[in-house]
């Protein structure tokens, strides 16, 4: 019998898992896919919001500012790329400037650090490539950019290293109420647990409805993005929001943590919880809206476009509470924006709820908050590179040319405690295949390494989820 079972290994579930690994609890993290961070976490704007935006009195307002403040420590402990580059909410007319000033007042109320209102001149000095149509902006220096899946993977790895069990490929089929606790029926065996944390993202209402009458409904909301080559990465230095108007919430233009440029998203409520296809209309809309903020965006340099789904509800607030008619079953649901920014605070808040239910928790004396850092070969000095290759020659073989990722790095991420098993898993952890050739050259080599390291046949190596096979079999024997 587990003490706590967390359903869903997105950034929310992984944050909670890591927070719980500070205590002597038998915790299991259950995920339907073959890797963590495979849903909303892998396709979003990758922004750590400063926190001036949420509606007063909401959990979002409370947890965004609190979460934002926790990122320096957590990303340092876990070796996750994060930069407080600052965010700008840009206005294009006087009416929008009023909105900017309202956000400023609200930000001051929420204790968002160091925010200020900029006039056109100050704004263009900061970001010279912005459109000439801008009139001013709200500047929040505490806003930042992050690698969202890197964060979730790091949280999961640290949780596992501190004793949490991770169960992948375990889609939850049913949950039975026991006299004490629950039995979770999954695609790969049953799990008995005293407490359940429902962090199932887009499916959190479905999971909740397995133990309760429906109390909320998730509306999958699709957002589409263009990702540009690094050659466009310095178009802007900060996250550029557009001031919300009556017509549109606007599209964001931002540098990514790895130096690309990201433009998106739109927002479209859809039925399909798996509907991550892009559409011509939305991609064109995003391109057009993005071009409003920044001059001369060259869409010929887009290396990929993608869509992500957010878990929205009409109430537009996080749901973090024990279910009304399922004791010891805690929903952590409707975590849309600013869910990533709030994640560390959501984890603490959830554990506080658990403590109320379970009583004081015994601390895990062996808890180690530090994750063994990744070696980022290309960032090392020549001396360090030479030294490393001498120790392990596999660092002398570049597999991904575009991002200069070596075999040594790929082997390391396969053998970590939440290691990569798929081509996209490698891409998310080490960026191999993330560059301008999008894996054209390195995919065969990456597949060969995965097969070799995990003792698989190369035809069993999949791109992403189970079923995303790449090879159909050997060529004809001659």
């Amino acid at each position, binding site marked *: 019998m587990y003490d706590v079972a967390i359903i869903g290994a997105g950034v929310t579930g992984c944050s909670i898992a890591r927070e719980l690994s500070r205590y002597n609890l038998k915790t299991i993290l259950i995920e339907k896919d073959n890797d963590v961070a495979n849903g909303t976490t892998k396709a979003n704007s990758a922004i750590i919001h400063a926190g001036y935006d949420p509606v007063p009195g909401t959990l979002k307002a409370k947890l965004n500012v609190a979460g934002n403040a926790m990122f320096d420590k957590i990303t340092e402990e876990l070796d996750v790329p994060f930069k407080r580059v600052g965010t700008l909410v840009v206005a294009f007319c006087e009416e929008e400037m009023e909105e900017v000033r309202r956000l400023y007042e609200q930000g001051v109320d929420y204790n968002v650090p160091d925010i200020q209102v900029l006039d056109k001149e100050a704004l263009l000095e900061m970001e010279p490539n912005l459109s000439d149509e801008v009139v001013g902006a709200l500047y929040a220096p505490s806003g930042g950019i992050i690698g969202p899946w890197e964060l979730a993977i790091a949280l999961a790895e640290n949780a596992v290293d501190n004793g949490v069990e991770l169960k992948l490929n375990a889609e939850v089929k049913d949950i039975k109420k026991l006299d004490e606790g629950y039995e979770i029926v999954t695609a790969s065996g049953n799990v008995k647990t005293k407490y359940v944390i429902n962090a199932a993202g887009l499916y959190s209402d479905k999971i909740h409805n397995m133990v309760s009458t429906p109390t909320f409904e998730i509306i999958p909301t699709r957002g589409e993005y263009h*990702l540009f080559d690094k050659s466009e990465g310095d178009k802007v230095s900060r996250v550029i929001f557009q001031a919300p108007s009556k017509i549109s919430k606007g599209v964001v233009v931002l540098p990514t943590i790895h130096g690309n440029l990201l433009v998106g998203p739109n927002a479209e409520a859809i039925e399909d919880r*798996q509907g*991550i*296809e*892009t*559409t*011509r209309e939305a*991609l064109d809309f995003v391109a057009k809206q993005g071009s409003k903020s920044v001059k001369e965006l060259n*869409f*010929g340099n*887009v*290396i*990929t*476009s*993608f869509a992500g789904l957010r878990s929205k509800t009409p109430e537009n607030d996080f749901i973090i509470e024990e279910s009304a008619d399922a004791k010891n079953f805690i929903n952590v649901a409707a975590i849309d924006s600013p869910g990533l920014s709030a994640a560390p605070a959501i984890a603490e808040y959830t554990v506080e709820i658990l403590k109320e239910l379970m009583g004081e928790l015994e601390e895990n004396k062996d808890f180690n908050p530090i994750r063994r850092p990744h070696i980022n070969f*290309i960032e090392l000095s*020549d001396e360090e*590179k*030479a030294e490393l*290759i*001498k120790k392990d*020659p*596999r*660092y*002398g*073989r*570049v597999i991904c*040319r*575009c991002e*200069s990722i070596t075999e040594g790095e790929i082997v390391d991420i396969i053998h970590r405690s939440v290691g990569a098993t798929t081509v996209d898993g490698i891409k998310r952890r080490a960026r191999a295949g993330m560059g*301008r*050739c*999008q*894996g*054209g*050259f390195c*995919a*065969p080599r990456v597949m*060969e390494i995965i097969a070799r390291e995990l003792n698989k046949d*190369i*035809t069993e190596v*999949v*791109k*992403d*989820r*189970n*079923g*995303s*096979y*790449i*090879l*159909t*079999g*050997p*060529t*004809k024997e001659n």
Partner: protein
Amino acid sequence: MMLNYDIVVIGGGPAGLAAAIEAHKNGAENILVLERDRELGGILQQCIHNGFGLHVFKEELTGPEYAERFIQELKDMNIEYKLDTMVLDINEDKLITAINTTDGLIHIQAKAIVLAMGCRERTRGAIHIPGTRPAGVMTAGTAQRFVNMEGYMVGKKVVILGSGDIGLIMARRMTLEGAKVEAVVELMPYSGGLTRNIVQCLEDFNIPLLLSHTIINIEGRDRVEGVTIAKVDENRKPIPGTEKHFECDTVLLSVGLIPENELSKNVGIKINRITGGPDVNESMETSIEGIFACGNVVHVHDLVDWVTEESTRAGRNAARYVLGQLKSEDNIVEIKPGKGIRYIVPQTARLSNVEDKLLLYMRVDDIYENMKMVIKVDGKELRSIKKRHVAPGEMESVNILKKQLDEFEDIKEITVELVEEE
């Protein structure tokens, strides 16, 4: 580790091999070829079809056979090479930083560098196809590597987007391996590939070539399940009502090649906006003195024979440079594309370095019939060449004899343009 060489060639494909061999023939010693793959020969090693060498050897060879002739010659000359070696950086003093598993990190000081890194394929993102992002979408070249070198099939029912030569070749290859190629879909009203490939790879196998069509959506959550195509208008926009659906498990992309110039850009070499490669002069020298470039890193060729020709010039001139025979100071002649011509390589020439003739490679910007190609020197017609049919997919070349140019004084500009024949 610090090494010293007269000439370092970056890339051991057809361009790098020819350049190294020719540099050696012209008196350069102390040459090193750096290759990132596990063997020499570059992409030729995965091109197991024939049709290579018709111009250079007057016979039809497969890609690996063509490569082997050069590899053998290189080895016979005892030219040094390092495999599995990745160049991380070059600087303007021609200091190269590279790594491999046996030497570790090496610094190599060169007197001259020849860039021969080739090109890469454009991807789905670069052409913005909407839809899902399943497995089963890959570039034709990646598929070619899987099928011909690794020995694995990548799908059973295939739609190919783009009619570049690799796409055409892979349409035949996949068919021969038992896959069904439903169609080759081409955005333009003409194919970007060689006519002989359209005949031998599509027509001979009854594979439809749908011109002025494109894929407007890719379906399938984990693996490709189908595509929707549509006809496009003259502005290349899909025409509503012309949609057609194909069930397939694979989409191969042959939508263009991009010269791979990350190293060149980092060292500050001037890159041409149209070719995507370095601007070069008559000696195939880039904007940085002593750094030469040749093959697909300069502009995308359709025949390896032309790569070889161009690279021998680069190799010969790198040797002349090292031996102090190239004149760096001279009147610089601009070579400019006129009407109907997209680009010309080289972009400039120093006439005192031109030996017996100046060879220009160029591509036209559209399909034309019954034209003449007019070569002008400072606005005056030098000569013209009749062209019954020209197409962007087939590279054109023009030879200008040195002695003809000697009749002019203080030449500023050479242009080539297409004019309708009367």
